[in-house]
Protein backbone atom coordinates (compact mmCIF):
# COMPACT_ATOMS: atom_id res chain seq x y z
CA UNK A 1 0.00 0.00 0.00
CA UNK A 2 1.05 3.57 -0.54
CA UNK A 3 1.60 5.62 2.59
CA UNK A 4 -0.09 8.98 2.91
CA UNK A 5 1.39 9.53 6.39
CA UNK A 6 4.91 9.24 4.98
CA UNK A 7 4.31 12.51 3.17
CA UNK A 8 3.67 14.52 6.27
CA UNK A 9 5.85 15.61 9.17
CA UNK A 10 5.28 13.03 11.91
CA UNK A 11 4.56 13.94 15.53
CA UNK A 12 7.86 12.64 16.83
CA UNK A 13 9.72 14.60 14.16
CA UNK A 14 7.99 17.79 15.27
CA UNK A 15 8.99 16.97 18.85
CA UNK A 16 12.60 16.28 17.88
CA UNK A 17 13.00 19.51 15.90
CA UNK A 18 11.15 21.54 18.55
CA UNK A 19 13.35 20.07 21.31
CA UNK A 20 16.49 20.99 19.34
CA UNK A 21 15.16 24.53 18.85
CA UNK A 22 14.28 24.93 22.54
CA UNK A 23 17.68 23.60 23.63
CA UNK A 24 19.43 26.02 21.25
CA UNK A 25 17.26 28.84 22.60
CA UNK A 26 18.20 28.02 26.20
CA UNK A 27 21.89 27.73 25.27
CA UNK A 28 21.72 31.11 23.50
CA UNK A 29 20.08 32.71 26.50
CA UNK A 30 22.57 31.24 29.01
CA UNK A 31 25.73 32.06 27.10
CA UNK A 32 26.90 35.61 26.50
CA UNK A 33 29.34 38.23 27.75
CA UNK A 34 28.02 37.34 31.23
CA UNK A 35 27.50 33.59 31.63
CA UNK A 36 24.34 32.64 33.52
CA UNK A 37 23.91 29.10 34.92
CA UNK A 38 21.33 26.92 33.19
CA UNK A 39 19.21 26.45 36.33
CA UNK A 40 19.12 30.18 37.04
CA UNK A 41 18.09 30.82 33.44
CA UNK A 42 15.21 28.34 33.64
CA UNK A 43 14.12 29.73 36.99
CA UNK A 44 14.20 33.38 35.85
CA UNK A 45 12.28 32.63 32.63
CA UNK A 46 9.71 30.53 34.53
CA UNK A 47 9.21 33.27 37.12
CA UNK A 48 9.07 35.85 34.37
CA UNK A 49 6.31 33.97 32.55
CA UNK A 50 4.14 33.67 35.65
CA UNK A 51 4.99 37.12 37.05
CA UNK A 52 6.62 35.72 40.19
CA UNK A 53 9.17 37.61 42.24
CA UNK A 54 12.68 37.36 40.77
CA UNK A 55 15.83 36.53 42.78
CA UNK A 56 18.33 39.29 43.55
CA UNK A 57 21.22 39.99 41.16
CA UNK A 58 21.73 41.09 37.57
CA UNK A 59 20.62 37.80 35.96
CA UNK A 60 16.87 38.65 35.68
CA UNK A 61 17.59 42.03 34.13
CA UNK A 62 20.10 40.64 31.62
CA UNK A 63 17.92 37.67 30.71
CA UNK A 64 14.49 39.24 30.56
CA UNK A 65 15.17 42.71 29.21
CA UNK A 66 18.10 42.04 26.93
CA UNK A 67 18.92 38.47 26.01
CA UNK A 68 15.54 36.74 25.85
CA UNK A 69 13.80 39.25 23.53
CA UNK A 70 16.88 39.28 21.31
CA UNK A 71 17.13 35.49 21.10
CA UNK A 72 13.38 35.17 20.50
CA UNK A 73 13.61 37.74 17.70
CA UNK A 74 16.60 35.89 16.22
CA UNK A 75 14.66 32.62 16.41
CA UNK A 76 11.62 34.06 14.63
CA UNK A 77 13.66 35.87 11.96
CA UNK A 78 15.62 32.66 11.28
CA UNK A 79 12.41 30.65 11.05
CA UNK A 80 10.79 33.21 8.74
CA UNK A 81 13.73 33.66 6.37
CA UNK A 82 14.27 29.93 6.13
CA UNK A 83 10.58 29.30 5.44
CA UNK A 84 10.63 32.00 2.74
CA UNK A 85 13.76 30.47 1.20
CA UNK A 86 12.22 26.99 1.17
CA UNK A 87 9.05 28.33 -0.44
CA UNK A 88 10.95 30.34 -3.07
CA UNK A 89 13.20 27.42 -3.97
CA UNK A 90 10.12 25.27 -4.53
CA UNK A 91 8.08 27.91 -6.32
CA UNK A 92 10.85 28.85 -8.74
CA UNK A 93 12.21 25.28 -8.96
CA UNK A 94 15.56 26.85 -8.36
CA UNK A 95 17.91 25.80 -5.53
CA UNK A 96 19.57 29.22 -5.68
CA UNK A 97 16.37 31.14 -4.98
CA UNK A 98 15.52 32.97 -1.80
CA UNK A 99 14.06 36.34 -0.86
CA UNK A 100 17.11 38.16 -2.15
CA UNK A 101 16.80 36.46 -5.55
CA UNK A 102 13.30 37.84 -5.86
CA UNK A 103 14.62 41.35 -5.18
CA UNK A 104 12.27 41.83 -2.22
CA UNK A 105 15.08 41.88 0.38
CA UNK A 106 16.87 44.62 -1.54
CA UNK A 107 13.64 46.58 -1.90
CA UNK A 108 12.91 46.26 1.81
CA UNK A 109 16.49 47.28 2.64
CA UNK A 110 16.19 50.35 0.45
CA UNK A 111 13.01 51.39 2.28
CA UNK A 112 14.63 50.89 5.67
CA UNK A 113 17.81 52.75 4.66
CA UNK A 114 15.75 55.71 3.44
CA UNK A 115 13.87 55.70 6.77
CA UNK A 116 17.13 55.69 8.78
CA UNK A 117 18.93 58.21 6.54
CA UNK A 118 16.11 60.72 6.56
CA UNK A 119 14.98 60.01 10.12
CA UNK A 120 11.48 58.92 9.09
CA UNK A 121 9.62 57.90 12.23
CA UNK A 122 6.06 57.43 13.37
CA UNK A 123 5.21 59.42 16.53
CA UNK A 124 5.02 57.12 19.56
CA UNK A 125 6.48 54.13 17.69
CA UNK A 126 10.16 54.90 17.11
CA UNK A 127 11.05 51.66 15.26
CA UNK A 128 7.86 51.61 13.19
CA UNK A 129 9.18 54.11 10.64
CA UNK A 130 11.84 51.68 9.45
CA UNK A 131 9.43 48.75 9.57
CA UNK A 132 6.64 50.44 7.67
CA UNK A 133 9.07 51.76 5.06
CA UNK A 134 10.68 48.30 4.67
CA UNK A 135 7.29 46.64 4.26
CA UNK A 136 6.01 49.31 1.86
CA UNK A 137 9.16 49.04 -0.23
CA UNK A 138 9.03 45.22 -0.13
CA UNK A 139 5.50 45.28 -1.50
CA UNK A 140 6.33 48.01 -4.03
CA UNK A 141 9.37 46.00 -5.17
CA UNK A 142 7.13 43.00 -5.63
CA UNK A 143 4.64 45.03 -7.63
CA UNK A 144 7.39 46.45 -9.85
CA UNK A 145 9.04 43.05 -10.35
CA UNK A 146 5.77 41.25 -11.09
CA UNK A 147 4.47 44.12 -13.21
CA UNK A 148 7.60 44.07 -15.34
CA UNK A 149 7.58 40.27 -15.50
CA UNK A 150 3.92 40.29 -16.53
CA UNK A 151 4.57 42.94 -19.18
CA UNK A 152 7.47 40.96 -20.63
CA UNK A 153 6.07 37.47 -20.14
CA UNK A 154 2.33 36.90 -19.77
CA UNK A 155 2.75 33.53 -18.06
CA UNK A 156 4.94 34.99 -15.27
CA UNK A 157 7.55 32.31 -15.90
CA UNK A 158 10.05 31.73 -13.11
CA UNK A 159 13.06 32.56 -15.26
CA UNK A 160 11.64 35.99 -16.04
CA UNK A 161 10.88 36.65 -12.37
CA UNK A 162 14.39 35.63 -11.26
CA UNK A 163 16.04 37.69 -13.99
CA UNK A 164 14.03 40.80 -13.16
CA UNK A 165 14.58 40.14 -9.42
CA UNK A 166 18.36 40.08 -9.87
CA UNK A 167 18.30 43.23 -12.01
CA UNK A 168 16.02 44.96 -9.50
CA UNK A 169 18.38 43.98 -6.63
CA UNK A 170 21.27 45.65 -8.46
CA UNK A 171 19.18 48.75 -9.09
CA UNK A 172 18.02 48.92 -5.43
CA UNK A 173 21.63 48.49 -4.22
CA UNK A 174 22.74 51.37 -6.43
CA UNK A 175 19.99 53.65 -5.13
CA UNK A 176 20.90 52.56 -1.58
CA UNK A 177 24.53 53.58 -2.20
CA UNK A 178 23.37 57.01 -3.36
CA UNK A 179 21.19 57.40 -0.24
CA UNK A 180 24.09 56.29 1.99
CA UNK A 181 26.37 58.85 0.32
CA UNK A 182 24.05 61.59 1.49
CA UNK A 183 23.24 60.04 4.86
CA UNK A 184 25.70 62.19 6.88
CA UNK A 185 25.70 61.33 10.57
CA UNK A 186 23.44 58.29 10.02
CA UNK A 187 26.17 56.51 8.03
CA UNK A 188 27.36 54.35 10.94
CA UNK A 189 23.92 53.11 11.94
CA UNK A 190 23.02 52.40 8.29
CA UNK A 191 26.25 50.47 7.72
CA UNK A 192 25.67 48.40 10.87
CA UNK A 193 22.03 47.84 9.94
CA UNK A 194 22.86 46.68 6.42
CA UNK A 195 25.12 44.00 7.90
CA UNK A 196 22.17 42.72 9.91
CA UNK A 197 21.70 43.04 13.65
CA UNK A 198 19.06 42.02 16.12
CA UNK A 199 20.82 43.71 19.03
CA UNK A 200 18.36 45.64 21.15
CA UNK A 201 15.27 43.78 19.90
CA UNK A 202 12.24 44.34 22.10
CA UNK A 203 9.25 42.18 23.01
CA UNK A 204 7.22 44.35 20.67
CA UNK A 205 9.57 43.29 17.85
CA UNK A 206 9.04 39.69 18.92
CA UNK A 207 5.26 40.07 18.84
CA UNK A 208 5.34 41.70 15.40
CA UNK A 209 7.59 38.90 14.09
CA UNK A 210 5.37 36.24 15.64
CA UNK A 211 2.25 37.76 14.12
CA UNK A 212 3.91 38.01 10.68
CA UNK A 213 5.14 34.42 10.88
CA UNK A 214 1.70 33.13 11.89
CA UNK A 215 -0.06 35.10 9.16
CA UNK A 216 2.29 34.90 6.16
CA UNK A 217 3.93 31.64 7.25
CA UNK A 218 0.50 30.07 7.68
CA UNK A 219 -0.40 31.03 4.11
CA UNK A 220 2.84 29.48 2.83
CA UNK A 221 2.33 26.27 4.84
CA UNK A 222 -1.20 25.92 3.45
CA UNK A 223 0.28 25.82 -0.06
CA UNK A 224 2.75 22.96 0.53
CA UNK A 225 1.05 20.72 -2.05
CA UNK A 226 1.12 23.44 -4.71
CA UNK A 227 4.79 24.07 -3.94
CA UNK A 228 5.47 20.36 -4.54
CA UNK A 229 3.84 20.76 -7.94
CA UNK A 230 5.93 23.83 -8.76
CA UNK A 231 9.11 22.08 -7.58
CA UNK A 232 8.39 19.24 -10.01
CA UNK A 233 7.74 21.72 -12.80
CA UNK A 234 5.51 24.70 -13.50
CA UNK A 235 4.09 23.16 -16.67
CA UNK A 236 3.27 19.98 -14.80
CA UNK A 237 1.68 22.03 -12.00
CA UNK A 238 -0.67 23.55 -14.58
CA UNK A 239 -1.50 20.12 -15.98
CA UNK A 240 -2.44 18.64 -12.58
CA UNK A 241 -4.82 21.54 -11.95
CA UNK A 242 -2.86 24.13 -9.97
CA UNK A 243 -4.04 27.68 -10.63
CA UNK A 244 -0.48 28.64 -11.44
CA UNK A 245 -0.78 32.41 -11.62
CA UNK A 246 -2.98 32.77 -8.53
CA UNK A 247 -0.87 30.47 -6.34
CA UNK A 248 2.33 32.14 -7.52
CA UNK A 249 0.95 35.57 -6.60
CA UNK A 250 -0.22 34.40 -3.17
CA UNK A 251 3.15 32.84 -2.32
CA UNK A 252 5.10 35.85 -3.60
CA UNK A 253 2.97 38.26 -1.58
CA UNK A 254 3.31 36.14 1.59
CA UNK A 255 7.08 35.83 1.11
CA UNK A 256 7.55 39.54 0.49
CA UNK A 257 5.41 40.47 3.51
CA UNK A 258 7.38 38.18 5.79
CA UNK A 259 10.75 39.29 4.43
CA UNK A 260 9.72 42.95 4.71
CA UNK A 261 9.01 42.55 8.43
CA UNK A 262 12.24 40.56 9.03
CA UNK A 263 14.43 43.03 7.14
CA UNK A 264 12.92 46.00 8.97
CA UNK A 265 13.76 44.45 12.34
CA UNK A 266 16.98 42.56 11.66
CA UNK A 267 18.46 44.13 8.54
CA UNK A 268 19.62 42.04 5.62
CA UNK A 269 20.73 38.70 6.99
CA UNK A 270 22.15 36.77 4.09
CA UNK A 271 22.30 33.04 3.43
CA UNK A 272 19.73 31.88 6.04
CA UNK A 273 16.99 31.53 3.45
CA UNK A 274 19.39 30.04 0.95
CA UNK A 275 21.34 27.51 3.00
CA UNK A 276 18.95 26.25 5.66
CA UNK A 277 16.36 24.72 3.30
CA UNK A 278 19.22 22.86 1.59
CA UNK A 279 20.43 21.44 4.91
CA UNK A 280 16.90 20.51 5.91
CA UNK A 281 16.16 18.96 2.51
CA UNK A 282 19.06 16.57 3.08
CA UNK A 283 17.36 15.44 6.30
CA UNK A 284 13.66 15.29 5.41
CA UNK A 285 13.58 15.24 1.60
CA UNK A 286 12.09 17.70 -0.91
CA UNK A 287 8.39 17.23 -0.08
CA UNK A 288 7.18 20.63 1.12
CA UNK A 289 4.75 19.09 3.58
CA UNK A 290 7.83 18.04 5.53
CA UNK A 291 10.38 20.54 4.24
CA UNK A 292 8.52 23.72 5.24
CA UNK A 293 7.89 22.82 8.92
CA UNK A 294 11.43 21.48 9.20
CA UNK A 295 12.79 24.69 7.62
CA UNK A 296 11.04 26.75 10.28
CA UNK A 297 12.88 24.86 13.03
CA UNK A 298 16.13 24.57 11.04
CA UNK A 299 16.24 28.30 10.26
CA UNK A 300 15.62 29.27 13.86
CA UNK A 301 18.38 26.93 15.10
CA UNK A 302 20.83 28.11 12.42
CA UNK A 303 20.28 31.80 13.17
CA UNK A 304 20.34 31.37 16.97
CA UNK A 305 23.70 29.58 16.71
CA UNK A 306 25.00 32.27 14.32
CA UNK A 307 23.87 34.95 16.76
CA UNK A 308 25.58 33.10 19.61
CA UNK A 309 28.84 33.07 17.65
CA UNK A 310 28.40 36.76 16.75
CA UNK A 311 27.98 37.63 20.42
CA UNK A 312 30.71 35.47 21.91
CA UNK A 313 33.48 34.97 19.34
CA UNK A 314 35.21 38.35 19.90
CA UNK A 315 33.72 39.01 23.33
CA UNK A 316 33.29 41.79 24.51
CA UNK A 317 33.09 43.03 20.89
CA UNK A 318 30.12 41.89 18.88
CA UNK A 319 30.04 40.92 15.22
CA UNK A 320 27.03 41.74 13.03
CA UNK A 321 24.97 38.56 12.70
CA UNK A 322 24.83 38.94 8.91
CA UNK A 323 28.62 38.64 8.73
CA UNK A 324 28.53 35.33 10.64
CA UNK A 325 25.69 33.88 8.56
CA UNK A 326 27.48 34.91 5.35
CA UNK A 327 30.73 33.23 6.37
CA UNK A 328 29.08 30.01 7.63
CA UNK A 329 26.48 30.06 4.87
CA UNK A 330 28.92 30.54 2.00
CA UNK A 331 31.13 27.64 3.11
CA UNK A 332 28.14 25.42 3.94
CA UNK A 333 26.48 26.22 0.64
CA UNK A 334 29.48 25.23 -1.45
CA UNK A 335 29.73 21.97 0.51
CA UNK A 336 25.99 21.16 0.39
CA UNK A 337 25.53 22.11 -3.24
CA UNK A 338 28.61 20.14 -4.26
CA UNK A 339 27.55 17.00 -2.38
CA UNK A 340 23.95 17.32 -3.59
CA UNK A 341 25.11 17.43 -7.21
CA UNK A 342 27.37 14.43 -6.64
CA UNK A 343 24.38 12.65 -5.09
CA UNK A 344 22.45 13.08 -8.31
Amino acid at each position, binding site marked *: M*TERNGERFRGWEYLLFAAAAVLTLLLSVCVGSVGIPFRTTISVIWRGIWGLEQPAGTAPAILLTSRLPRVLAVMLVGASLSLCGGAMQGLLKNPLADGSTLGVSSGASLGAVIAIAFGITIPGLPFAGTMVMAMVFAFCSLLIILGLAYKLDFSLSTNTIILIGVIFSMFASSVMSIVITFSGEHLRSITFWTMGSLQGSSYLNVLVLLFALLLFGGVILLHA*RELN*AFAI*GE*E*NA*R*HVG*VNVRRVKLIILIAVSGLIGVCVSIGGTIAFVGLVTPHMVRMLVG*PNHKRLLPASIFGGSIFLMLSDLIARTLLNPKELPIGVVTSIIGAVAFVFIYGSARKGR
Partner: protein
Amino acid sequence: MLTVRNLSVSYGDLTILKDVSFDLTPGEWLMIVGPNGAGKSTLINAIVGGAPARGSVRFEGREIRSMKPQQVARSIGVLAQSHAVGYSFSVEEVVRLGRYAYAPTIFSGHRGEEEAIRKALEETGLYEQRHQNVLTLSGGELQRTFLAQTFCQDPRLLMLDEPTNHLDLVYQKQVFELIQAWRRREDRAVISVVHDLSMARAYGTRALLLDHGQVVVDGTMEEVFSDEILNRVYGMDVRAWMGRMLAQWKEA
Protein backbone atom coordinates in the same frame (compact mmCIF):
# COMPACT_ATOMS: atom_id res chain seq x y z
CA MET B 1 -16.57 14.77 -26.04
CA LEU B 2 -14.31 17.54 -27.36
CA THR B 3 -15.39 20.18 -29.85
CA VAL B 4 -12.81 22.57 -31.24
CA ARG B 5 -14.03 25.43 -33.42
CA ASN B 6 -11.97 28.04 -35.27
CA LEU B 7 -9.07 27.82 -32.84
CA SER B 8 -6.39 30.35 -33.74
CA VAL B 9 -3.15 31.31 -32.01
CA SER B 10 -1.04 34.33 -32.97
CA TYR B 11 1.99 35.99 -31.41
CA GLY B 12 1.99 39.51 -32.78
CA ASP B 13 1.93 39.25 -36.56
CA LEU B 14 2.98 35.61 -36.49
CA THR B 15 0.08 33.18 -36.91
CA ILE B 16 0.81 29.74 -35.45
CA LEU B 17 -2.67 28.21 -35.74
CA LYS B 18 -5.47 29.35 -38.01
CA ASP B 19 -9.12 28.33 -37.67
CA VAL B 20 -8.54 24.75 -36.54
CA SER B 21 -11.80 22.83 -36.03
CA PHE B 22 -12.43 19.19 -35.20
CA ASP B 23 -14.53 16.91 -32.99
CA LEU B 24 -13.49 13.98 -30.84
CA THR B 25 -15.66 11.15 -29.56
CA PRO B 26 -14.98 8.65 -26.71
CA GLY B 27 -12.82 5.70 -27.71
CA GLU B 28 -10.91 7.57 -30.40
CA TRP B 29 -7.15 8.02 -30.58
CA LEU B 30 -6.58 11.08 -32.72
CA MET B 31 -3.07 11.38 -34.11
CA ILE B 32 -1.98 14.92 -34.92
CA VAL B 33 0.72 14.76 -37.55
CA GLY B 34 2.54 17.22 -39.72
CA PRO B 35 5.99 18.64 -40.41
CA ASN B 36 8.01 20.67 -37.89
CA GLY B 37 6.48 24.08 -37.25
CA ALA B 38 3.01 22.98 -38.35
CA GLY B 39 1.54 24.06 -34.98
CA LYS B 40 0.97 20.58 -33.49
CA SER B 41 2.27 21.29 -29.97
CA THR B 42 0.64 24.74 -29.97
CA LEU B 43 -2.69 23.04 -30.71
CA ILE B 44 -2.31 20.79 -27.63
CA ASN B 45 -1.36 23.82 -25.52
CA ALA B 46 -4.19 25.96 -26.82
CA ILE B 47 -6.79 23.27 -26.09
CA VAL B 48 -5.90 23.24 -22.36
CA GLY B 49 -5.51 27.02 -22.14
CA GLY B 50 -1.72 27.07 -22.07
CA ALA B 51 -1.48 29.43 -25.04
CA PRO B 52 -3.43 32.65 -25.73
CA ALA B 53 -6.00 31.49 -28.29
CA ARG B 54 -9.12 32.67 -30.08
CA GLY B 55 -11.99 30.38 -30.95
CA SER B 56 -13.91 27.84 -28.95
CA VAL B 57 -12.88 24.62 -27.19
CA ARG B 58 -15.70 22.76 -25.51
CA PHE B 59 -15.33 19.67 -23.36
CA GLU B 60 -18.60 17.79 -22.97
CA GLY B 61 -20.47 20.98 -23.82
CA ARG B 62 -18.55 23.29 -21.47
CA GLU B 63 -16.16 25.96 -22.69
CA ILE B 64 -12.76 24.98 -21.27
CA ARG B 65 -11.79 28.60 -20.66
CA SER B 66 -14.70 28.96 -18.24
CA MET B 67 -13.69 25.86 -16.28
CA LYS B 68 -11.49 26.03 -13.17
CA PRO B 69 -7.97 24.56 -13.52
CA GLN B 70 -8.91 21.65 -11.23
CA GLN B 71 -12.02 20.88 -13.30
CA VAL B 72 -9.89 20.87 -16.45
CA ALA B 73 -7.37 18.53 -14.79
CA ARG B 74 -10.16 16.12 -13.81
CA SER B 75 -11.30 16.04 -17.44
CA ILE B 76 -8.07 16.24 -19.43
CA GLY B 77 -4.66 14.78 -18.64
CA VAL B 78 -1.61 16.13 -20.44
CA LEU B 79 1.67 14.27 -20.86
CA ALA B 80 4.60 16.40 -22.01
CA GLN B 81 7.45 15.05 -24.12
CA SER B 82 10.13 15.52 -21.44
CA HIS B 83 10.36 16.41 -17.78
CA ALA B 84 13.05 18.21 -15.80
CA VAL B 85 12.13 17.52 -12.17
CA GLY B 86 13.71 20.03 -9.80
CA TYR B 87 14.34 17.93 -6.70
CA SER B 88 14.68 14.33 -5.58
CA PHE B 89 10.99 13.49 -5.18
CA SER B 90 9.99 9.85 -5.04
CA VAL B 91 8.00 8.20 -7.84
CA GLU B 92 4.99 8.02 -5.53
CA GLU B 93 5.19 11.73 -4.65
CA VAL B 94 5.11 12.68 -8.33
CA VAL B 95 2.23 10.29 -9.03
CA ARG B 96 0.33 11.55 -5.96
CA LEU B 97 0.17 15.03 -7.47
CA GLY B 98 -2.15 13.55 -10.06
CA ARG B 99 -4.77 13.64 -7.30
CA TYR B 100 -4.31 17.39 -6.74
CA ALA B 101 -7.46 18.13 -8.72
CA TYR B 102 -9.40 16.01 -6.23
CA ALA B 103 -8.27 18.17 -3.29
CA PRO B 104 -9.89 16.88 -0.11
CA THR B 105 -12.62 18.82 1.60
CA ILE B 106 -13.78 18.51 5.20
CA PHE B 107 -16.57 16.24 3.97
CA SER B 108 -14.80 14.11 1.36
CA GLY B 109 -11.39 13.61 2.99
CA HIS B 110 -8.86 11.78 0.82
CA ARG B 111 -11.50 9.41 -0.52
CA GLY B 112 -10.12 7.08 -3.15
CA GLU B 113 -6.71 8.74 -3.27
CA GLU B 114 -4.58 5.83 -2.07
CA GLU B 115 -6.49 3.38 -4.26
CA ALA B 116 -6.06 5.58 -7.36
CA ILE B 117 -2.33 5.97 -6.71
CA ARG B 118 -1.81 2.26 -6.19
CA LYS B 119 -3.77 1.43 -9.34
CA ALA B 120 -1.82 3.93 -11.44
CA LEU B 121 1.51 2.63 -10.10
CA GLU B 122 0.52 -0.96 -10.82
CA GLU B 123 -0.79 -0.22 -14.31
CA THR B 124 2.47 1.45 -15.28
CA GLY B 125 4.61 -1.23 -13.61
CA LEU B 126 6.09 1.19 -11.11
CA TYR B 127 4.68 -0.12 -7.86
CA GLU B 128 7.93 -1.77 -6.76
CA GLN B 129 9.84 1.42 -7.61
CA ARG B 130 7.42 3.76 -5.84
CA HIS B 131 9.99 4.93 -3.28
CA GLN B 132 12.76 5.46 -5.84
CA ASN B 133 14.18 8.95 -6.38
CA VAL B 134 12.90 10.22 -9.75
CA LEU B 135 16.29 11.79 -10.52
CA THR B 136 17.72 8.26 -10.73
CA LEU B 137 15.12 6.96 -13.23
CA SER B 138 15.81 6.29 -16.90
CA GLY B 139 13.99 8.40 -19.50
CA GLY B 140 11.42 5.67 -20.07
CA GLU B 141 10.78 5.14 -16.36
CA LEU B 142 10.38 8.88 -15.85
CA GLN B 143 7.90 9.10 -18.71
CA ARG B 144 5.98 6.17 -17.21
CA THR B 145 5.97 7.99 -13.85
CA PHE B 146 4.31 11.02 -15.41
CA LEU B 147 1.95 8.75 -17.34
CA ALA B 148 0.97 7.21 -13.99
CA GLN B 149 0.38 10.74 -12.72
CA THR B 150 -2.03 11.44 -15.59
CA PHE B 151 -3.77 8.07 -15.06
CA CYS B 152 -4.12 9.10 -11.42
CA GLN B 153 -5.96 12.25 -12.55
CA ASP B 154 -8.55 9.84 -13.94
CA PRO B 155 -9.21 12.08 -16.96
CA ARG B 156 -11.70 11.36 -19.74
CA LEU B 157 -9.26 12.60 -22.36
CA LEU B 158 -5.50 12.19 -22.50
CA MET B 159 -3.39 14.57 -24.56
CA LEU B 160 0.17 13.65 -25.39
CA ASP B 161 2.77 15.95 -26.87
CA GLU B 162 5.30 13.72 -28.60
CA PRO B 163 5.40 11.42 -25.56
CA THR B 164 8.10 9.11 -26.86
CA ASN B 165 10.39 11.63 -28.51
CA HIS B 166 13.41 10.96 -26.30
CA LEU B 167 12.78 7.28 -25.76
CA ASP B 168 14.35 4.22 -27.34
CA LEU B 169 12.24 1.68 -29.22
CA VAL B 170 11.52 -0.49 -26.19
CA TYR B 171 10.21 2.42 -24.15
CA GLN B 172 8.29 3.86 -27.12
CA LYS B 173 6.42 0.59 -27.47
CA GLN B 174 5.93 0.30 -23.72
CA VAL B 175 4.40 3.79 -23.36
CA PHE B 176 2.13 3.44 -26.39
CA GLU B 177 0.93 -0.01 -25.29
CA LEU B 178 0.09 1.37 -21.82
CA ILE B 179 -1.92 4.22 -23.31
CA GLN B 180 -3.64 1.85 -25.74
CA ALA B 181 -4.67 -0.45 -22.90
CA TRP B 182 -5.91 2.49 -20.80
CA ARG B 183 -7.96 3.90 -23.71
CA ARG B 184 -9.64 0.58 -24.45
CA ARG B 185 -10.24 -0.38 -20.84
CA GLU B 186 -11.80 2.91 -19.80
CA ASP B 187 -13.37 3.84 -23.16
CA ARG B 188 -11.58 7.16 -23.04
CA ALA B 189 -10.11 9.30 -25.80
CA VAL B 190 -6.54 10.19 -26.63
CA ILE B 191 -5.06 12.99 -28.71
CA SER B 192 -1.37 12.76 -29.44
CA VAL B 193 1.17 14.67 -31.42
CA VAL B 194 3.56 12.26 -33.12
CA HIS B 195 6.39 12.62 -35.58
CA ASP B 196 6.75 8.93 -36.32
CA LEU B 197 4.15 8.19 -39.00
CA SER B 198 4.49 4.43 -38.47
CA MET B 199 3.58 4.79 -34.79
CA ALA B 200 0.71 7.10 -35.71
CA ARG B 201 -0.59 4.55 -38.16
CA ALA B 202 -0.17 1.62 -35.77
CA TYR B 203 -2.01 3.11 -32.82
CA GLY B 204 -4.30 5.86 -34.17
CA THR B 205 -7.97 5.46 -34.99
CA ARG B 206 -8.08 8.80 -36.81
CA ALA B 207 -5.60 11.44 -37.89
CA LEU B 208 -5.45 15.17 -38.35
CA LEU B 209 -2.75 16.51 -40.64
CA LEU B 210 -1.58 20.05 -39.94
CA ASP B 211 0.58 22.24 -42.12
CA HIS B 212 1.45 25.91 -41.58
CA GLY B 213 -1.07 26.10 -38.73
CA GLN B 214 -4.02 24.87 -40.76
CA VAL B 215 -5.83 21.56 -41.05
CA VAL B 216 -4.93 19.92 -44.35
CA VAL B 217 -7.09 16.87 -43.79
CA ASP B 218 -8.98 15.33 -40.88
CA GLY B 219 -10.16 11.78 -41.44
CA THR B 220 -9.50 8.08 -41.26
CA MET B 221 -5.92 6.82 -41.29
CA GLU B 222 -6.33 5.81 -44.94
CA GLU B 223 -7.59 9.26 -45.96
CA VAL B 224 -4.86 11.18 -44.16
CA PHE B 225 -2.02 8.84 -45.02
CA SER B 226 -2.69 8.92 -48.76
CA ASP B 227 0.41 9.26 -50.93
CA GLU B 228 -0.78 12.39 -52.65
CA ILE B 229 -1.46 14.32 -49.42
CA LEU B 230 1.66 13.19 -47.54
CA ASN B 231 3.95 13.87 -50.48
CA ARG B 232 2.51 17.36 -50.89
CA VAL B 233 2.78 18.30 -47.20
CA TYR B 234 6.19 16.76 -46.48
CA GLY B 235 7.63 17.68 -49.89
CA MET B 236 9.01 14.20 -50.51
CA ASP B 237 7.92 10.74 -51.55
CA VAL B 238 7.02 9.48 -48.08
CA ARG B 239 5.99 5.97 -49.13
CA ALA B 240 9.20 5.45 -51.11
CA TRP B 241 11.27 6.60 -48.16
CA MET B 242 9.44 4.32 -45.72
CA GLY B 243 9.74 1.46 -48.21
CA ARG B 244 13.49 2.01 -48.47
CA MET B 245 13.84 1.97 -44.70
CA LEU B 246 11.86 -1.26 -44.43
CA ALA B 247 13.71 -2.86 -47.32
CA GLN B 248 17.00 -2.48 -45.46
CA TRP B 249 15.58 -4.64 -42.69
CA LYS B 250 14.20 -7.18 -45.14
CA GLU B 251 17.57 -7.47 -46.90
CA ALA B 252 19.34 -7.94 -43.59
